[in-house]
């Protein structure tokens, strides 16, 4: 996937723009900050989630990190390949390292998200 086609949250998650179901993952910056991801806890497909609910838990050697739903909806698919190959998130955060697919029930919260250019700018500002 091309990052230009994605929307980003301040917590460094991405979601496909203008699609439903839409894939969700974490940004390249996030995977670098987390360092090597060694375990992924994925939800059951079919689960209904609220905006802001924890979708996925990622574990590196010394930290765990939750990935939150940027919008409400139903999980239609999960990337179960990650269970055996969590390193794919590090290798290809925008591609093979996608996490779940969400059927969006209300897309209004997505209006607050950043496009790639805005996200890049946000990252620069954050670095102090």
């Amino acid at each position, binding site marked *: 996937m091309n990052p230009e086609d994605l929307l980003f949250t301040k917590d460094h998650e991405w979601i496909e723009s203008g699609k439903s179901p839409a894939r969700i993952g974490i940004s390249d910056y996030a995977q670098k900050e987390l360092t090597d991801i*060694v*375990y992924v806890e994925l939800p059951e497909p079919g689960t209904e989630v609220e905006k802001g609910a924890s979708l996925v*838990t990622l*574990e*590196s*050697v*010394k*930290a*765990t990190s939750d990935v939150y739903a940027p919008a409400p909806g139903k999980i239609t698919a999960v990337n179960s390949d990650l269970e055996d190959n969590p390193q794919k998130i590090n290798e290809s955060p925008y591609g093979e390292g996608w996490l779940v697919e969400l059927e969006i029930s209300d897309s209004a919260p997505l209006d607050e998200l950043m496009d790639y250019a805005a996200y890049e700018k946000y990252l620069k500002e954050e670095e102090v």
Partner: protein
Amino acid sequence: MRYIANTDQQKREMLKEIGVSSFEELIGTIPEEMRFRGELDIPGPLSEAELEEEFADLAKRNADFTSLKPLIGAGAYKHHLPRAIQALLGREEFYTSYTPYQPELSQGTLQAMFELQTYLARLTGMEVVIPSVYDGASATAEAALMSLRLTRKNRIIISSTLHPHYRSVVETYTAPHGTEIIELPYQDGLVAGPRLEKVLTDDTAAVIVQSPNFFGGIEKIAELAGLAHARSALFIQVVAESISLGLLKTPGEMDVDIVAGEAQSLGMELSFGGPYNGYLGARKKYLRQLPGRIAGETVDRDGKRVFVMTSRAREQDIRREKATSCICSNHGLNIIASDIYLSLLGTEGFYQTALLNTRAAHYLEERLVASGGFERVFDYPFFNEFLLRSKKPLPGIRASLLEAGFLPPLALGAFIGDESLENTALFCVTEIFSREKLNRVTQLLST
């Protein structure tokens, strides 16, 4: 003050460099009215000589435990401990160090963990072993909680032959979760398969059975585990006397899912009940649900084989409220004690020790029964503890044993509040009893 380094002069210098005129200024954020005024009402300070005298006096208020030989076990076992254990544990690098978070400076502790994990895996037949939680009872409670998480069920069957303290701790730990606890009555000192079958349901998370059990009896673990599995419940075996593993089948061979053990027998003093050390063994697929620290093998930048704490994301400092347990401090030094103990005894020593325990226990049991003063309560196989009913009142027996230098057996009926076990004594015999001593006990109790 011998444990405070800086002199008053140095403290004044330091305060000056900090830029304050007094210590009070440093703690200025604490409002006056909250501060403690005056001096804490604490005796002392005692010089080292005074301290030694004080503690010698306290110790003298106890019976002379250095020479008393315990005929009691019940979860705390007196075995001979090679002196090398205490000598090695006294190395400051072991006993004063912290949890091995920095592997470059902690390979001693980490390798000892890895070695004990190996020993315990071999003794229990389990694929993965957490070498330290607090004790066998809390290990059992952690195993119970683990079974709730793994099965998402909330009912646990506990054998009535489980150590009463262990059972109480399981109840304490599971109380907040509203877990239904079913007590499984014993039959002739053991868990009976048909009785277990009757209470097993599909919503049972786990069956907890101790073997050798609190009465000393050896349970038919493989059969019981099979019954539990048939109803998709996990089977947890509790091992309170780990020396028994030297002689018995491993829990792994008997298809046990989780082992909750007490390692006190493997190198620890009785020490009035603690610190001992609990361990947890399980199938590898359950690793992520195990509480506590585990060491794993890896390499350093030069390719050397080294050890680190691993699978850390289960733990409270990383996972906070989602951790498998709140356990942080464990009983790390006791890990080293067991590693040394098992290394010294070795293959043959450990086997022979287990063998001698059971032989000595059976020797005394047969003699006491033959003496006519006691009768058997249960017809069960046992390891190094056995239950007999005394034909004479127990208090008299206790007095004569104490006088002759033996700590009396546990008066079981009174202890667990079971009238059908009135006047029964739970004996424990370990390798510290010679034939002569056992003959002496028989003689004392026959007259």
